[in-house]
């Protein structure tokens, strides 16, 4: 077998989804052969009258495949379909080259509810690694499947899974009248169950999650001027932040949810301000005649990084939240913008221009080492998964804009397509959700 083949770059796994609200189609365009083989046997549901609305094992399998860390076995290659430990013949799974095995079943519980039981095995040791019994309803089966994916992922990688999180993004497409409609949608991390939270005939942009994941702040040009709104997802109610003349943009929540960093140009050029949610007061953080925008908080809440062209070209700077001197962080290239921290605070990701192409790059803060993670020409708006495993961003695809994801090591690439319109500015939710 040639080396190239062994590296096996093209997994070309196409997962085609159809959900209620304009689904995103996820396509893994480049994977790695170092992914762990795992067999996820279809869960039995013989005792559930009418069967299940969701193929739980398929959801888990798709989740794990998308992470790039796992290579789920095709069902066609399975020699048996056990649903509990006593039915498992480990030698069969060893022969298929599988490291791990997941089996499970769904049982009826009281009041029309269901119980999902699953077990994760080490195939070579013939041992159970973990096993859970999870209550669920028919309408909550997808959520339950994502929780199982989280448990499996954490057990096998030592890293918390982010399959139960959500993504927000902006779409634009011609509406019924032919005029462009701008929307912000929220979907599960796998693109399912997209729901529109705001629709406008004028642009909406810059969705930003609150640290608890219960609210989204965003910029809206309704009335032809920019304003920042904060919308509670569950109720749909929103509050307009006091808006000033000029730019009202780039909202970013502090990790403790007490403050919102934003960009205002009321005092001349675009500068970073911090809005205190409790005292409802604005404090100016940067003072330059240049553009200062795109604030983002360090995970410890002590610093804000931002884009500034004070040196002539846009570069990333860091300033203490309490104020003080801004320090330049990026020196590679003539264009670095829209930076944000990795969840562990060790690196920042940003839009980086290289040879005229705009790509997603990561900068390791301790070493100053920059690595290019994406391979498009108009890539922008990078957003880390809360566990730091993946980065979502937008990229051009012909005349359209679509979402793409890359593993934080740059090895696994995916594209997420929405039928009929542009999708951009993805924002991955935090873990905590209410």
């Amino acid at each position, binding site marked *: 077998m040639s080396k190239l083949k062994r590296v096996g770059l093209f997994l070309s796994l196409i997962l085609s989804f159809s959900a209620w609200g304009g689904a995103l189609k996820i396509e893994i365009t480049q994977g790695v052969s170092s992914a762990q083989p795992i067999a996820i046997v279809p869960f039995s549901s013989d005792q559930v009258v009418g069967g299940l609305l969701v193929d739980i094992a398929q959801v888990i399998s798709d989740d794990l495949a998308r992470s790039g860390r796992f290579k789920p076995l095709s069902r066609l290659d399975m020699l048996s379909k056990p649903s509990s430990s006593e039915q498992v013949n480990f030698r069969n799974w060893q022969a298929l080259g599988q490291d791990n095995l997941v089996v499970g079943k769904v049982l009826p519980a009281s009041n029309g509810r269901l119980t999902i039981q699953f077990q994760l095995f080490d195939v070579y040791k013939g041992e159970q690694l973990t096993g859970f019994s999870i209550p669920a309803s028919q309408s909550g089966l997808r959520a339950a499947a994502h929780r199982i994916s989280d448990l499996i992922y954490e057990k096998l990688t030592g890293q918390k899974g982010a399959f139960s999180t959500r993504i927000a993004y902006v779409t634009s497409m011609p509406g019924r009248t032919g005029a462009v409609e701008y929307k912000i949608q929220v979907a599960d991390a796998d693109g399912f169950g997209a729901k529109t939270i705001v629709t406008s005939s004028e*642009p909406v*942009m*810059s969705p930003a999650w609150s640290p608890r994941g219960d609210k989204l702040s965003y910029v809206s*040009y309704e009335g*032809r*001027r*920019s304003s920042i709104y904060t919308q509670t997802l569950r109720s749909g109610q929103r509050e307009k932040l006091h808006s000033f*003349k*000029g*730019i009202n*943009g*780039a909202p970013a929540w502090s990790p403790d949810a007490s403050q919102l960093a934003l*960009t205002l*140009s009321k005092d001349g*050029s*675009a500068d970073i301000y911090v809005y205190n949610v409790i005292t409802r007061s604005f404090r100016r953080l940067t003072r330059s005649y240049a*553009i200062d*925008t*795109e604030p983002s908080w360090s995970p410890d809440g002590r610093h804000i990084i931002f*884009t500034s062209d004070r040196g002539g*070209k*846009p570069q990333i700077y860091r300033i203490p939240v309490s104020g003080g001197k801004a320090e330049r962080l990026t020196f590679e290239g003539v*264009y670095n*913008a*829209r930076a944000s921290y990795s969840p562990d605070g060790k690196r920042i990701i940003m*839009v980086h*221009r290289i040879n005229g192409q*705009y790509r997603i790059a990561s900068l390791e803060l301790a070493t100053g080492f920059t690595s290019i993670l994406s391979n498009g*020409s*108009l890539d*922008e*708006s990078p957003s880390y998964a809360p566990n730091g495993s993946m980065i979502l961003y937008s990229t*051009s695809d012909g*005349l359209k804009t679509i979402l793409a994801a890359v593993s934080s090591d740059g090895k696994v690439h995916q594209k997420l397509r929405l039928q009929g319109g542009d999708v*951009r*500015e993805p924002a991955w939710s935090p873990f905590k959700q209410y």
Partner: protein
Amino acid sequence: MKTYQKLLAGLCLSSALAGCSMLDGDEQAGGNGAIDGTNGTNGGASTSGLSDGNNFTGHPLDNPASALSTKVIYFAFDSHAVEPQYEAVLAAHGAYLAANAGVAVIVEGHADERGSREYNVALSEKRAKTVQNLLSLQGASGNQTEAVALGEEKPVVLGHNEESWRLNRRVELIYPAH
């Protein structure tokens, strides 16, 4: 308010330019412009009266022979400098605003799609503010102009090439009452 309007009307009359947008409705109601049958194409005001040989009978902002008819100016990449060929255009608009104190204009800045979106909003605001300043140098007052920054959110051309980008890096002068 009434005195203010009277004052504005006076300013309009004293100016050499016809067609103060505040008075558009009245002029139409008077039906003056309909006599020669060459109304403006967009249902706006249609006055005439410049007796200097210019036989354009539409609104001065629509006069193809005037620099006022140009309402979009274009910029170089990552630049907010107004290029020399647009200086006469902005001088004309500035003078028009100075002569018509009741007219307001929205100075709408735009950027091409390259780079990050909020940075492009700030860049497009710099463009709009440069134009705003040039208008005020001609005598337009601060409350006649408003800079709005739309970044790359409203392209006029979709396309990932130099020609599309050139057309999208722009400032539009929008006269809401026109």
